[in-house]
């Protein structure tokens, strides 16, 4: 029998040799970009969706898990700080993090390979710079989740040695993340022909974000000012333009995760990681599903303003002196039928961003008419009366913005880095560095935009104003910090940043324990009946010194064994 009988090449796949050219290098780079949305790493997608709604949302006081009690109990465990290291959400997120890293490394290795003959040095450098931007991003996602994680670069990762990445998590990897963003910043163009690609400004902003997480405020400020002044980015007039597909990649945007629909895939590129986070009714955006990720009563209350249009905050930097949560904003909790007459009291002054962030009964929901309350909520008794809004689409955009077979797959991009973040980080830097009036100026830029932009429902009493000049200076640093933090909360609510911010500010413990204690208490509904808000949060607590970071997945520790010992060390669990 001749060897040719056995000479069977793998069918339907490419070898590294076939990819060793410019097209192949670019295709690997696209593969690395592809995981930005959090979907495609072989996990469920929702475990690692870019919105981080599980890890950064339902843990943060801004949102509850939603749906009913028994649905996805592993999310409930996370929401209730019952964090076991075998929770599959942790493993899913970890898996995605390092799949992104591996894809970036593959692109870098091939871009540097001498087997690739048809690329110039400049082209290679650009690929490496984009790939390092992505590698920095994926590691950043892991860093904020677990703190101590291994850094895997192209010198560590070896395709032929499955044990090559068994690296201990005994070093702080911030320097490595910074190095990746710096390299990207130094080697990327200011503008890219394709909107999805990372630019110099994206890398600079991300580097600044890494500094913010390390409290390197001076260094961050330098970079942020550069972006603010020189990037050419401008705040869009209408706050809501950051949350609609027709205004994807707008002038405020620094780096967006690109979503697409009707692109020949099965919808997986259209925010598939958030595909459970839609109203329960078929008359609603998404056309009926699951009802996850709902705004908390506490978040809704935070949008209440004083008659002067200012947030109801106190002078403690951890927010524990804030007063917005003493009285609940009127709502339809306990009204169990869409057909019962319900008139929302719209006279209480609120920040207009509330109704671009939260769906509530009696208020216009994009162009779908007034949100009808109960039918859109899977189990109001359990989850409360609100629904999210920012990732949803207009009825008018149904079809162009939605995937043909599933309307829960949409192309409303996730704005990962935007100028509004840069401005509020600048405000934070200034406040931290003692320049309170500078901080106030930046905060007021954001508030003025909220004041002057379009509103969702003109029948609501929207009142929002900038802080009167000198307020921060007069009330002191703690108040200023609290004001900056509140502004970040209002501006970026339901975008998955909040928990990580609470941790980096060092206020997660007092803030979240207050939130849970209050949210667990009974409220009074519009019919005068006592109702249980989120009773399941009773007795739940955030343990300072432990819950700042998630447990490293048990499987990973098990699989990191080398010479009979695990190379990974568990966090404080």
């Amino acid at each position, binding site marked *: 029998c001749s060897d040719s009988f*056995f000479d069977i090449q793998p069918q339907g796949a490419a070898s590294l040799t076939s990819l060793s050219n410019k097209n192949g290098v670019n295709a690997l780079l*696209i593969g690395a970009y592809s995981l930005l949305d959090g979907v495609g790493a072989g996990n469920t997608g929702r475990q690692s969706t870019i919105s981080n709604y599980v890890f950064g949302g339902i843990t943060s006081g801004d949102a509850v898990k939603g749906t009913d009690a028994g649905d996805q109990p592993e999310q409930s465990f996370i929401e209730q700080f019952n964090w076991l290291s075998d929770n599959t959400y942790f493993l899913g997120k970890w898996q995605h993090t390092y799949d992104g890293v591996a894809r970036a490394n593959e692109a870098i290795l091939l871009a540097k390979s001498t087997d690739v003959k048809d690329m110039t040095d400049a082209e290679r450098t650009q690929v490496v710079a984009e790939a390092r931007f992505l590698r920095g991003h994926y590691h950043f996602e892991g860093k904020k989740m677990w703190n101590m994680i291994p850094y895997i670069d192209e010198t560590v990762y070896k395709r032929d040695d499955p044990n090559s990445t068994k690296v201990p998590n005994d070093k702080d990897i911030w320097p490595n993340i910074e190095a990746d963003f710096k390299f990207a910043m130094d080697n990327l163009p200011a503008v890219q022909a394709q909107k999805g690609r990372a630019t110099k400004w994206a890398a600079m902003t991300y580097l600044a974000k890494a500094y913010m997480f390390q409290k390197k405020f001076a260094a961050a400020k330098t970079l942020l000012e550069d972006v603010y002044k020189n990037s050419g980015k401008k705040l869009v007039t209408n706050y809501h333009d950051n949350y609609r597909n027709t205004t994807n990649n707008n002038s405020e945007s620094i780096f967006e995760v690109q979503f697409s629909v009707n692109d020949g895939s099965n919808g997986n590129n259209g925010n598939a990681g958030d595909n459970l986070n839609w109203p329960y009714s078929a008359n609603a955006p998404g056309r009926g599903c699951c009802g996850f990720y709902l705004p908390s009563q506490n978040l809704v209350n935070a949008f209440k303003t004083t008659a002067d249009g200012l947030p109801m905050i106190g002078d403690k930097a951890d927010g524990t002196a804030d007063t917005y949560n003493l009285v609940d904003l009127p709502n339809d909790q306990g009204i169990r*039928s869409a057909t019962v007459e319900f008139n929302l009291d719209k006279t209480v002054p609120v920040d207009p961003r509330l109704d671009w962030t939260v769906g509530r009964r009696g208020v216009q929901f994009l162009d779908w008419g007034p949100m009808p309350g109960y039918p859109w909520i899977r189990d109001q008794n359990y989850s409360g009366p609100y629904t999210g809004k920012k990732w949803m689409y207009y009825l008018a955009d149904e079809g162009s913005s939605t995937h043909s077979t599933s309307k829960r797959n949409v192309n409303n991009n996730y704005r990962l880095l935007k100028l509004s973040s840069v401005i509020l980080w600048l405000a934070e830097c200034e406040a931290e560095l003692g320049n309170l009036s500078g901080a106030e100026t930046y905060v007021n830029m954001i508030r003025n935009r909220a004041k002057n932009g379009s509103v969702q429902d003109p029948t609501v009493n929207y009142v929002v104003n900038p802080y009167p000049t000198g307020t921060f200076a007069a009330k002191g640093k703690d108040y200023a910090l609290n004001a900056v933090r509140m502004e970040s909360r209002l501006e970026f609510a339901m975008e998955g940043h909040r928990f990580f911010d609470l941790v980096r500010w060092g206020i997660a413990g007092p803030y979240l324990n207050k939130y849970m204690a209050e949210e667990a208490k009974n409220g009074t509904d519009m019919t005068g009946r006592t109702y249980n808000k989120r009773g399941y949060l009773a007795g739940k607590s955030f343990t300072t010194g432990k819950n700042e970071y998630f447990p490293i997945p048990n499987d990973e520790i098990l699989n990191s064994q080398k010479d009979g010992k695990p190379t990974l060390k568990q966090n404080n669990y």
Partner: protein
Amino acid sequence: QDRKVSGTVQDAKGDGIPGVSVLVKGTTTGTTTDGTGAFSITVKSANAELSVSSVGYVAKTVPVGNRSSITITLDEDVSQLSEVVVTGYASQRKKDITGAVAVVGAKELTAVPSASVTQMLQGRASGVTVGNDNSPGGGTMVRVRGFGSINNNSPLYVIDGVPTQGTLNQINPSDIESMQVLKDASAASIYGARAANGVVIITTKRGGEGEPKINFDMYTGTQDVGKTLDLLNTKELGQYYYESEIGAGKPAGTSPSVQYRFAPDGTQTIADYIYPNVYGSLPANYTYTNDITDPNLGKTAWNITKANKEGTDWQHVIFGPAKISNYQLGATGGSKNGKYAISGSYFSQDGILKYTSYQRYSVRANTEFKKGNLTFGENFTVSYDEKVGVPSGNNNESNPIMFAIRIQPIIPVYDITGGPVALGGTNSSDLNGFAGSRGSNLGNAPNPFARQWREKDNPVKGSHIFGNVFLEYEIIKNLKARTSLGFEYNNYNQSAYFNRDIEAAEARNSNSLTVSNSFDRAVTWYNTVNYNKTIGDHTFNVLVGTEAVSTYSFGFNASRSNFAFDDLSYRYLNNGSAAGLANAGSGATQTALFSQFGKVNYSYKDFLLADFTLRRDGSSRFSPAYRYGTFPAFSVGARLTELAFMKDLTFLNDLKVRAGWGKTGNQLIPNVYNAYTLFTPDPNNNAYDISGSGSSIASGFDIAQFGNSFGRWETNTSTNIGFDGSLFNNKLDIAFDWYTRTTSDMLTQVPIPKTAGTASIPYVNIGEVNNTGIDINITYRNQIGDLRYSISGQYSQYKNNVVKLNDDPKATIFGFSTRLPAISVTKAGLPIASYFGYIVDGVIKDDAEAASAVQIPGYTRAGVFKFRDVNGDGKITADDKTIIGNPHPDFTYGLNLNLGYKNFDLTVFAQGVQGNEIFNYLKYWTDFNTFQGNRSKDMLYNSWKKQGDVALLPRLNSNDTFSQQISTYFIEDGSYTRIKNIQLTYTVPSSVIKKLKLSSLQVYVQGQNLFTFTKYKGLDPDINLRTSGNDNQDIHMGIDEGAFPVAKSYNVGLRVGF
């Protein structure tokens, strides 16, 4: 002087035996009997003797004397020792076999009607474990002597010399003559490379010399569901929800859902309509619609649905009586120069799960022609089948069985229209009129019956060709050369249509059609030379040969959505919207295998028997340097009864002791391209809209798999020691085997950290698994007057142990994740797929016990599970998970009882499994606070209520999300004994038959699966693999995720010989 002698050869009952060889002793003059057992032969003298022999009968020598007409009665050879058994490229007398071989005859096999011959093996052969899928046309798990590997443990099937590794659904069981299971290496190693999981040899029916025999066989019957789960009715479920809310600390009078109102005193009111949700009568302006795109849907238009206040018994909605029938017409016959066996059959089985079904048409032709020293023949079967499987698959939480368990009883089957006209309703649409969970608080389980109805027209259509042509040439006497070209071809097509389900909570946004096509083919060419020689007392049989196998398979699918009409005649791809266009076709799977082999059988005076086998295989699945494997084996046997002193032991008719050792290989790594590192493009997972267009993607690549170019054969080394004995005038047969077999260099996907990315892990040769066990077969048969009886039993046990996975003693391979994390783990020192979870020490009975228990913050109090702190660190963490059960049985058994009296025969067949544990995942849905679904009676009535209760389940609390952790609560004893078959057969006496001008006539009635004795609480304890036949399923065995239960059935059958 020559004279003609005529006669008849008959059996003990006086029926003629066809095809009996009649030879004038010491001459070459011979003939065979015709269809009625008659013969005529010419003898030269009155001293002549006739040697009369036939397979299955004790040979006899009869003096002719001066008779001109002789009636010869042959006794059935009940010991079957002289039976000739096909053992791989050759055949052997059963009495000469020294390896471990189980033989199952056609009669036993086909006693229990079934679509697939593999299902029929259950309980029939010792050492063979069979798990049934139970769904019509579903797959079967066959495991020979335990689980040798964690990859694929399916045995190799060889049908008329052609190997295959499928479900065998395409073979009509009635065409099978016999089946041999080669269990140990010494028997199986002739199939070397693929024999590690055992080899099942199937021989189909051939023609014999004699007049044509035409047979018609049929049976028909009805099947129905057995046990169902004890779930709550509408009122009880409301009560459960209410108590759960109160348990969560909500005030008395809280309404737990919109359908149930509770007064502060606990009085319950149930809504009159559930969609829209209305108490009392419907507002006048509400209209009915069955159009999901109606803009008023949910506002003023509804698919109006009344509440079923008594409760829908969903399990009896989805299940129902189902027909099974089989018709077969066959002819056999031939002459010295040509033999034939042809048959046509139709098999049809509806599933007890309504609208599931399996139908098969098959035609077989086996022919053989002889001219001089040449024999040429073919065995071919062509079949076509259609299978409407379980929507979403068997053993899947999204299948109708699970949905029937989860859906609330308040939901009726139909909305107010009563359903489609074809189902007795008045709805204008053939696909609408169903009730569902669309209203609030009705959970998310869709109406399972609606799914079954809507997906009834989505069959998988299969076409199959299987068979071989062969040529045999007798070069000189006893030296035969044979060549055989085998061919297998399977083609599958499915048009799966899914329409919009207006009534479902999570409704489909658009209808869609997916068309899938796939085909596979295998070509096997083997050549053997066989030489037989007896020198004095020494007999040799030498076989050498080569074999080449090449396989190829390929599939693709395409789908479109937004079809304007749902009509069956409209369900073609072009009619869908191109916007929803999707298509996919993965790479082809292509393999090649080339082998050389040889075997020597030696016997000395019928006393000493020895076999030696050597096979060398080369496989394309391994890189050139590691391509070849060599697999030797030998066995010896001694028939002790041939020893002089043993001859005095008259009670002992035959005693053979056997011992064998050998190696076999396994190349069945699921990834045929394991040696290569590969990159693939995938629009779903590595493409990206880099241009920001919102509706287009740039295609990307990522690493799909890490290659292992050092992969080589998995080796299975086995030792077998056994004996076969016949005692008391061959009335008692005993076969006993002890074996140990170790798979080394096991191809294992040892998990690597995810820090390396998600490219699939290569299979590397490091694991080692041992199975040790015994197989026993005992048969006793006797006759008292007219009463014939026999009892036979088979007993098998194995102990499975993973010796190592890799050099890391803690290396762990997890099974699949369900809604729960992975339930099964495979690691060194344990059986494959052991259950892994927390230990629950009951429910905490009171506050005092709660205070002393290990605290789980926010959970621990009276009336919740007491999780055990296994590592004693004072807290409950993932480190407290431990091994909590074993899916492997202590032993399995089969028991067969045959009673015959005159023309009546009664057969009882029982089969069972002892000592295995089942992970009852159904309880996750029925016994805990998961989704707004139905619950078990246990949960309402046997949960903790008050201080001091010793309860089965934790207190009702709608906020409890913790109790359903993987724990010992889910583990149940899976032992069962099942009366698989009871059959009464009446054979019409030959006197009557002759009048009817028939040659034989039998009728029978049969009851299948009438009794099952088990403590298992799920629907059925016979849990098959998740997707049987697929790779890597064994690491997740024994988990009941909504398995199709076995049907009880009643059949009548008829066998007519013309």
